[in-house]
């Protein structure tokens, strides 16, 4: 069966629209509507160019329209379509002009570059060389290491899990009240990409310790230096990697 050219045109345009809308519908990551308008313009032009590249194609596309206008037998259909088309055009124009009041988009860097040194717990730490003092026990004394991980877990469940979650997935029972959402440690894009010294920095100085590109004014991460000890920070870092099964990044040797 040969699909009428006009119908094919409509199908192709609808299909392109659906493809551009799909990320928003299925992945909750919509393409901005202004971009969709632009994409659709190019899509329609491309489809038209392709379909009218031959005389036959041109006729197939225009023919039905021409017949509808000229054939007296199709007068009713023509009148209906001629009423619908201006209304649809007005509708589209209105939707484009209508002011919307959505929240402004706030972009922030999720893993901003750390400073070279930080001052916490009354000391200066060089983040370039800083290492977790307990990491070496993983091989040297596995039993002691397991105990430290457990202690780190207790630190986590007394301090962190309200936001970062029982499952370390960033969906704790108070996470819904924050924007940005708390970090999901099970996601491959967070601690798996980072060094332990980075975590030490983020934990001990909290939201207010972020550089500007990290939007410190909206981060709800407390300044943990005020609540827990340096030792506890290192232990909770051990726990985060142990529970998720990720390995911290290290300087290539």
């Amino acid at each position: 069966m040969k699909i009428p050219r006009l119908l094919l045109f409509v199908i192709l345009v609808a299909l392109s629209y659906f493809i551009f809308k799909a990320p928003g519908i299925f992945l909750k990551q919509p393409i901005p509507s202004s971009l969709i308008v632009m994409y659709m313009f190019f899509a329609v032009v491309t489809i038209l160019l392709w379909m009218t590249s031959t005389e036959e194609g041109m006729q197939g596309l225009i023919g039905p329209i021409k017949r509808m206008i000229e054939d007296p037998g199709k007068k009713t259909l023509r009148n209906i379509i001629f009423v619908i088309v201006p209304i649809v055009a007005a509708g589209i124009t209105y939707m484009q002009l209508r002011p919307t009041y959505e929240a402004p988009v706030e972009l922030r860097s999720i893993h901003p570059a750390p400073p070279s040194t930080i001052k916490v717990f009354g000391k200066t730490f060089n983040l370039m060389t800083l290492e977790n003092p307990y990491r070496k026990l993983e091989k040297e004394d596995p039993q002691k290491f397991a105990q430290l991980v457990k202690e780190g877990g207790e630190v986590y469940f007394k301090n962190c899990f309200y936001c970062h979650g029982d499952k370390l997935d960033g969906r704790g029972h108070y996470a819904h009240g924050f924007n940005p959402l708390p970090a999901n440690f099970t996601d491959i894009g967070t601690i798996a990409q980072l060094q332990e010294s980075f975590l030490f920095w983020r934990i001990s100085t909290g939201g207010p310790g972020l550089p500007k590109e990290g939007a410190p004014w909206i981060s709800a991460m407390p300044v943990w230096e005020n609540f827990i000890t340096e030792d506890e920070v290192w232990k909770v870092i051990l726990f985060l990697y142990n529970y998720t099964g990720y390995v911290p990044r290290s300087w290539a040797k």
Partner: protein
Amino acid sequence: MKKKLLLPVVLSLIISAQAIAAQGNKENGKIIYDKKCWWCHGEKGAGDGPAAKFLNPPPRDFTAGWYKFKTTPFDEITPADEDIFRMISGGMNHISLWKGMSGTSMPNWDDVLKEQDRWDLVAYIKSLSGLEQPQKPPISYSGQIKSSKESIEKGREIFKKMCVECHGEEGKGDGTKKLKDDLGFRTWPRNLTKPWTFKVNNDPKEIYTRISNGIPGTQMPSFADPSSKKTLSEEERWHVANYVASIADDIKRPKDDTVLKVIRLEGDLPSKIDDPKWAEAQPTSFYFIPQIIAKERFFTPTMDSITARAFYNDKEIAILLEWDDRTKSIPGDEKAKELAEGDVLEDSVAVQFPVIIPEEMEKPYFGMGDSAKPVNIWQWKSGTTSAPETMKLMNANGFQKIEQRDAAKAGLKAIGVYNNGTWRVVMKRPLATEEKDKDVQFAEGKYTPIAFAAWDGSNGESGSKHVMTTWYWLLLKPATPKSTYIIPIIVALLVFGGELLLVRKSKK
């Protein structure tokens, strides 16, 4: 004869096959428990893990052997295995953002634990209190009465007689009794107008289950128990369930839209709280979270959301804040004292704005500003039996640097009214003030950061102990320009004209 015998045989085969499928391996259950569950529920299941004392409600004590949300009847203490399985898996309340058990920290485990692992946990958890299989089957829904106007009305009448003592006149959990569970923890009757906070959900069947079975270990009794003074017939219980399902108030449920749109009015703004004009404003609701960021952290909130509406005209802005609080806390009031945890302190609400509305992204720190960027805080307090309600104006550069200012001089006013479990407070201020470098100056069409906070004085909340929100937006919504309506009409006319040209051309 043969046929009659066959049916029970087949049935019992099916049932035992199910029992085998549901039978978990408790040794494997323990392995999972020791990795995932003990942090809250404790090493031996006594509900005393490291996180326990920061949680309200507290984690379930598995050694006690009673479960709140079960389908087996009131005179059967043992829950069905499916009940425990469902609590572990989560997703019981589909309206809630929280996929675990809403209002608690119990998450849904169905995304990280396989089905068999969850059954194994059921077996292990039951073994902690030596629970066997229940002797009685789950309650039946065969007598369900479909919701209708009549049924809801009948349910309302029964509710008024039987339930308001704890759940309050309008079902917001603002009863007249201080409740404790069997372990001595304070419990709050459910606010029935917020079904997204229900532990399970507000399907009439679920509500019927709670009414019929009670909530074991709490003061929610079984209304099916014939020995109780509060017995209701099956039919009556369905009517109450239908009524309770009908009082959900979805306006109070926070949605994705986080912009509080301030609607322009010609003429005076409503100054009374019950002014019918408020119905024309656009309500926007926001989640409260307890202040867990700075010292002193606060973990046991009683209030979970706030709804705001706002109007402006060419002179003023008026914001109506509405939030459910089970207790009206007026220090000195005897009735308030009976319900309070500890001393009665004043109830309070506050809104926060940056002093300078940021042109770009950078705002003051959401927790009371920072040294470079101050915030305005407008705080209303409920007053005591000897002092009237108050309205304070503060400028803060962080919580340690607060300047008290003269609210009246800035033209800031507020009134508050408490009714049936809800506070309503109207705050008003001129759009512009004299001290332009100290007060936020509102302007049409400008996205203005706004944050909220509230204190429940009967829950020990004062100072840093309170519930709060992060930054959201307030927008004085400009009138839609006329061109928005005119241009589409012109487009329609042009297209129609084009069509006419086409027809004319074809006729030549």
